[in-house]
């Protein structure tokens, strides 16, 4: 390994070769020998500005990192929310509330109508049900009567048939009598007037037989009615069936109406509950309150410090020199999803109502619940 120490020193080129003649470009000015006053002024201003800017950048970076870290670990912050009357959510909320109320009123009318209808149906059902035993009783009574009179009529019918048979035999003998009358009239044994009288008597007998025969037939019909189920009784049974069917239909209708009424009543209760809950919403309070109300969003991570009566602090630069500006007045449990005031991410949490002694704090980016975040 050779070292360079012993190498002879090489002299630099003492005189450079003559450079060709050059012409300065129009935009090139030779460097001034001393700094001009203008340059010195500009430089001074620039250096002051640069130092300030660099310190500002440095402070900005440190502050930014601190704020990021602070809000990553702090669990007491809340974000004030100012709800205006024309706030989109408030308007939307009011619109839904009005719709709910209208639905509730409609449901109430429906319930009344259904109750009335149900009552009417129940009454009608009672009437029909009371009619059914009477009809059954009449049928039973008629059947009992037929049971008694039927056999008697059968006996009478038999007797009537026998009587008519006997009468018919007698009427056959009357034909000989009539022939004898006509012979006697022809022989002049009797007068014409006597003959007509005798023939009329014969016709009356025949007529009586015919009547008797008719009575026999009618009696047979009656016996048939009394001893068997005829169309008449079937009509009665049909009416009884119709009556029962109508009762069953009314039962179904009553059942449906009762269930509908029950459901409507439940719906009414639900709507009442919902409206009652809605009345506890900050948006309702905001829309119906006569004076300005202040609200705040509290992420779930910070929920432990959100207690009614807890003090609220507002800080300069969102962190330091904090002062008490009010207390937590009310806590609304409905979930809210808002944008994180620092990280700009979506955060879940709840809303509180703030009673602020310094209303301007409602415009702060964040406030702190319970205690000062940095003890000063």
């Amino acid at each position: 390994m050779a070292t360079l120490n012993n190498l002879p020193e090489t002299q630099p080129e003492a005189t450079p070769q003559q450079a060709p003649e050059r012409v300065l470009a129009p935009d090139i000015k030779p460097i001034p020998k001393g700094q001009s006053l203008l340059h010195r002024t500009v430089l001074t201003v620039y250096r002051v500005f640069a130092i300030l800017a660099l310190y500002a950048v440095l402070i900005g970076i440190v502050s930014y990192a601190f704020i990021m870290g602070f809000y990553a670990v702090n669990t007491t912050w809340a974000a004030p929310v100012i709800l205006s009357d024309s706030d989109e959510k408030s308007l939307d909320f009011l619109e839904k509330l009005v719709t709910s109320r209208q639905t509730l009123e409609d449901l109430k009318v429906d319930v009344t109508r259904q109750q009335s209808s149900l009552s009417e149906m129940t009454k009608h059902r009672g009437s029909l049900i009371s009619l059914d035993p009477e009809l059954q009783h009449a049928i039973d009574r008629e059947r009992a009567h037929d049971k008694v009179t039927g056999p008697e009529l059968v006996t009478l019918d038999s007797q009537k048939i026998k009587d008519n048979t006997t009468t018919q035999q007698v009427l056959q003998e009357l034909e000989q009598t009539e022939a004898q009358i006509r012979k006697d009239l022809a022989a002049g044994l009797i007068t014409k007037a006597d003959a007509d009288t005798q023939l009329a008597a014969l016709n009356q007998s025949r007529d009586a037989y015919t009547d008797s025969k008719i009575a026999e037939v009618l009696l047979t019909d009656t016996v048939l009615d009394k001893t068997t189920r005829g169309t008449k009784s079937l009509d009665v049974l049909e009416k009884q069936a119709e009556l029962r069917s109508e009762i069953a239909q009314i039962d179904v209708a009553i059942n449906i109406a009762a269930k509908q009424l029950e459901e409507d009543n439940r719906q009414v209760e639900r709507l009442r509950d919902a409206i009652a809950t809605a009345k506890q919403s900050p948006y309702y309070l905001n829309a119906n309150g006569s004076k300005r109300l202040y609200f705040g969003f509290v992420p779930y991570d910070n929920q432990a410090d959100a207690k009614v009566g807890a003090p609220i602090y507002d800080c300069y630069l969102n962190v330091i020199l904090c002062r008490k500006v009010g207390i937590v007045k009310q806590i609304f449990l409905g979930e809210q999803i808002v944008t994180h005031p620092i990280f700009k991410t979506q955060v879940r949490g709840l809303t509180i109502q703030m009673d602020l002694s310094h209303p301007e704090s409602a415009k702060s980016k964040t406030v702190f619940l319970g205690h000062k975040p940095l003890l000063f």
Partner: protein
Amino acid sequence: MAPVLLWLVMLLCLLISVVKYLMGIILKWSFPSANIRKDYSLQPTVSVLLPCYNEGKTVYETIESISRSNYPNHLFEVIAQDDCSVDDSYRWIQKAQQDFTNIRIRSGRNPVNCGKARTVCNALQHSTSEIIISIDSDCIFHPNAIRELTACFSEPNLGSVGGRVGVRNPNDGIVTTIQTIIYYTAFQLYKIPENWTRSICCISGCLFAIRRQLLLEIEPAIRARNWFGIPVNQGEDRFLTHQTLLRGYGTYIDNDALCWTTVPNTLSVLFKQQLRWRRSIVRDLFYTLRTLPRHVFKLHPNTVFHLVLIPLGAIVALLVVLTMLFTDPLAWVSPTPLIGYLGVAAIFTWVISKYSVKETLSHPLAFGAYVGWSLVSVLFLTPLALCTMDSADWGTRAKSQQEVELGNPQ
């Protein structure tokens, strides 16, 4: 108003990304004719200027790599100019002068430390060649590098040509892994749309070739660079490229001209380096805005686009991130950027392993850490650069004023 502004900013970012990367892919794959027609028979004389400050033995290795160049040795020389290094750099230069006798090496030393830009100008005084190649003293050069660069000058209107800078230490750690992918994408995609119209806005000072006459024309401007009276010696590569464009010449990156640099492997050094670069970008943006009205009609629209919009991107990105932090502070927790960067890492690791084996990454997923670095870069570098425009500190070459014992070269 704020959302509209945010959307405009986002639109601008999208436009920049689309133009830079999408156009880069399209042009690279679909328009190879956009590449320059190189004439290797063109063999001008070349002076390789090597400004050096506190590089130690690395400068010896750099000269060694140049000595292996396949460019005809009689047609080029190395002019190493030491900027009053407080270590043994100058002795290493002298050692190289003795060891590599196959090429002509001349050395010089500034009377006082005056920065890289003026050191290049001082070295230029010793040169008489047609083409000047300025290089960094911590880079290793491919033997073809000089040949490739000079061949590009066959295009008569081309003023400056740069080479591709690769990473020597891709697997030193997360920091170098990130830079490897950034460097690769920058040269292989990001600069392609600029190459298309010969309007590269910043040729890396690691490997920067320029016509001698043009450099002589610009040299007074380099020496006169000042910021309200304070000499500016940073960002000379961006300034040179910009001046080339303003003078109506084209600029080009030849990805076949390779050199390898050792990138910072610690966050603090990377931060200082990036701060210096960001300062140059901001300074260049101000210069652009000041001079654009006079030059806007001479320049190609693509050049104007890249000169104005790309530097604006740094400021725009700052606004976007600030707006994002205030409107959606936890957005950066989203895994989307991480997934995006891991996807980029997966793709480019494969591409790099296929086309640049030397830079193959052993832990490509480390590129996911770019999420963190991009936040640091956007949030801190731009404001810091804007507020330290008067700083002349190079940042990454500082050493206490003491002589360092020389080691032995191989």
